[in-house]
């Protein structure tokens, strides 16, 4: 596959992943991830955030983020770019935090692709202080 085809396939997967997230369509999201996928969330006790590894843990993580934790999560104004097998999605996030407070922050996912699927999703959010 040529480099351009790889990048086109990767950015299509990244955009489809975001749209599936908007629909809370976990099956569609899972179909875009490799079997050995890794998701490092934006927060947690380790330097890389909380790590979820493999499809089973990934599904649990997505269910928690999309279903258990918040029913009003929205990702707005997504922007994507890809270079080879690396890529980025930047977005605005609005939703409700675990403590019930509403939250609005910018965030991003830094991605590694393999075979046109997401092999690593490293998530970040701004640490928004009270104002």
């Amino acid at each position: 596959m040529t480099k351009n085809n790889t990048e086109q396939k990767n950015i299509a997967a990244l955009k489809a992943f975001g749209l599936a997230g908007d629909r809370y369509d976990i099956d569609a999201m899972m179909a875009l991830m490799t079997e050995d996928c890794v998701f490092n969330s934006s927060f947690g006790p380790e330097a890389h955030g909380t790590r979820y590894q493999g499809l089973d843990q990934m599904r649990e993580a997505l269910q928690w983020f999309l279903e258990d934790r918040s029913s009003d999560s929205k990702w707005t104004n997504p922007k994507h770019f890809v270079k080879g097998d690396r890529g980025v999605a930047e977005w605005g996030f609005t939703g409700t935090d675990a403590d019930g407070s509403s939250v609005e922050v910018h965030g991003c996912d830094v991605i590694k692709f393999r075979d046109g699927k997401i092999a690593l999703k490293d998530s970040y959010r701004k640490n928004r202080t009270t104002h």
Partner: protein
Amino acid sequence: MATEVSDQAKVALLEKFGNAWNDHDIDVLMDCMADECEFFGSTGPHVNGSQFLGREKVREGYQWFLDNFPDGQWNDPQHFVNGDRGVSEWRFTATMPDGTSIEANGCDMFTFRDGKISVKDSYRKNRTTS
């Protein structure tokens, strides 16, 4: 007039910029920045963290970091660039002003103009203690 600068040259710019952070060299940092530039820090009251708009504010923001984290290091950097966008990933280690140490992964989302950095938009993992 806009000049065409290769992705490879922009990766080299990000390597120079990352080394300047580790060397705590404010002049080299600013040499990597475009005349009109912005810096959004990972933590702050705005949706995009803290905001430093314009070259003088960006310099003040960078200097604040260097002053507050005198042993701050951005370790194991990885960079990629496509056109006018680029990313650096790193693992930040430092002694905090209160004496505690911090180690957290982070990244910069860059925008380039004429071969220099016009926007540095920074993120760090929100490392919890439990």
